[in-house]
């Protein structure tokens, strides 16, 4: 396994930021970490990036312990924090050169690497510009190039698309797709995970420091959804249809939208039970002309599981 997290716990006094987290990721996996602010994503990433010691448990990157061999772990990871600054008076290539030297890459190799990385993140034309003159999206891409300078096996990206405009998000997503094809193991947390879902092989949902779900995108949706969201369209007699729906114990959260002659509700029954419900409605001669099940995307799932979570 490229990443092995074992019973990772982090406490701040009586507050438990991470509670017995266990996770194994194979090489080349792109893992999406979902959770509300303060759920424990950044704490997990900080521990993996050797910036924070866990209270108990351990994590291994390519077999190296973050506690016992932090320097070895640093060689294996490229870390991009959620908030980061840049050195104002350095130029783009000097910025990368500094970090290349910081990883012990010799000057000749750095000279070859820097143009390649700038090309990868589409910043070739900004090579001799001062870093502080770049837009936020460009800075994010530069930071990603910086994280790649020592060719790490694992990329830890904490909210890499936060604060970016739609175009910059698309550019970032394309670069990540590229990195995926290069075989990097990528851990990524993001509030726009639905956008990234297609490139994530696995998703983990963290809430109050606990990993409450882990698997591929479809599994997670099924695991977390539990109930369907159904929209019924009628031609007339909204109240009559509403009364009919209220009789079914598996229906909840009924919402009547009079202007559109629609009723939305959550349904906990199986597909077979839904067939029975439909038959009953037809027998009751209700003016229903459409019944559709709305697909919950990952964003809805995310909203549902993080509902009520305390903001950081």
């Amino acid at each position, binding site marked *: 396994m490229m990443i092995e997290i074992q019973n990772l716990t982090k406490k701040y006094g009586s507050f438990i930021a991470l509670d017995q987290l266990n996770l194994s990721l194979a090489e080349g996996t792109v893992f999406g970490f979902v959770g509300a602010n303060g759920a424990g994503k950044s704490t997990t990433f900080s521990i993996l990036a050797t910036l924070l010691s866990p209270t108990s448990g351990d994590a291994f990157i390519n077999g190296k312990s973050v506690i016992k061999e932090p*320097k070895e772990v*640093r060689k294996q*990871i490229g870390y991009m924090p959620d908030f980061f600054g840049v*050195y104002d008076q350095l130029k783009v290539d000097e910025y990368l050169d500094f970090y290349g030297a910081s990883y012990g890459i010799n000057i000749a190799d750095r000279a070859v690497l820097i143009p390649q990385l700038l090309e990868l993140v589409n910043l070739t034309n900004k090579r001799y510009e001062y870093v502080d003159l770049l837009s936020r999206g460009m800075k994010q891409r530069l930071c990603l190039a910086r994280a790649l300078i020592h060719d790490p096996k694992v990329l830890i990206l904490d909210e890499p698309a936060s604060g970016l405009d739609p175009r910059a998000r698309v550019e970032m997503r394309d670069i990540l797709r590229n990195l995926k094809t290069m075989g990097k193991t990528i851990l990524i947390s993001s509030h726009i995970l639905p956008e990234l879902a297609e490139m994530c092989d696995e998703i983990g949902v963290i809430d109050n420091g606990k990993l409450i779900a882990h698997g591929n995108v479809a599994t997670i949706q099924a695991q977390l959804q539990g109930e369907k969201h159904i929209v019924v369209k009628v031609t007339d007699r909204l109240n009559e249809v509403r009364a009919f729906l209220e009789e079914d114990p598996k229906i909840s959260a009924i919402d009547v939208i009079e202007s559109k002659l629609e009723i939305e509700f959550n349904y906990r029954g199986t597909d077979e039970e839904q067939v029975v419900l439909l038959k009953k409605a037809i027998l009751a001669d209700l003016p229903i002309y459409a019944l559709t099940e709305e697909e919950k995307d990952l964003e809805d799932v995310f909203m549902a599981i993080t509902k009520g979570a305390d903001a950081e």
Partner: protein
Amino acid sequence: MMERLYNPVFVKELKLRFRSFKSFSGLMFYLAVLVIFIAGFLLITTGFTGKGFFRPDTSFAMFSVLTIIQMALVLFITPSLTAGAISSEREKQTLNILLTTTQSSTQIVIGKLLSSVSFLVLMLIAGLPLYSLVFLFGGVSPSQIASIFLFYLLTVVAVGSIGVMFSTITKKTIVAMIATYGSIIFLGGITAFFFFITMAFSQMTPPAAGGTAQSFMAYFWAAINPGALILTLIEPEMGRGLKELSGVKLPVWVTYLIFYSGIMLLCLTVAIKKLRANMKSNR
């Protein structure tokens, strides 16, 4: 070989420092103070004699005051260069990224300190042409100047280490700056006050009643005071006077060297240990 000695933080810091206007304005301020002093001194001295010449003993007086002023300036400037070393990285949110590189805590701390010290050395070198006026008029030996510059260097490194330590253990640059200036006020001012107090007490107390211990303390306070060190280096008679008064035979410069080397080692050790404070292993 060069690659092994290459310290990325040191090179980056130098680059950033020489691109900032603050550094040049600092250097300008330093040289301006020295020029104003020397010009003022020359004008007043030649004005008093009314003959337009300059005696070697007057040249020596200028050298003495210039040396003390230079030490005061160095003590005044060092905290501003070192107290933000780590805390400014924290404030700019660049520290976390730096700490995930494979550079050791020692490399980072030493790189930061060396870049600040280099700038201060540049200041001292930039002031040398002004200093050379003293040679023009005579009265001072080159070895005296060399030893004074070596002690400047020791003081800069030690005070710089204090700044880097406070910068590492405090979150805000302003707090680190206040703590470092506080330390300098203690070393440069309060020790002198303590020296006079303990000296007065030791002269009032007979040796049997603890006067020896008090005179030893008086020696200690004088020996760790940068101003007192400079005075004993300029005027060896003062060192001998202190030796007679306190009964301690160890030359002041030796105590100063040991004490400031100790401060430097202690502060650098704390800074290195505390740089990755959130990591137990700190490697």
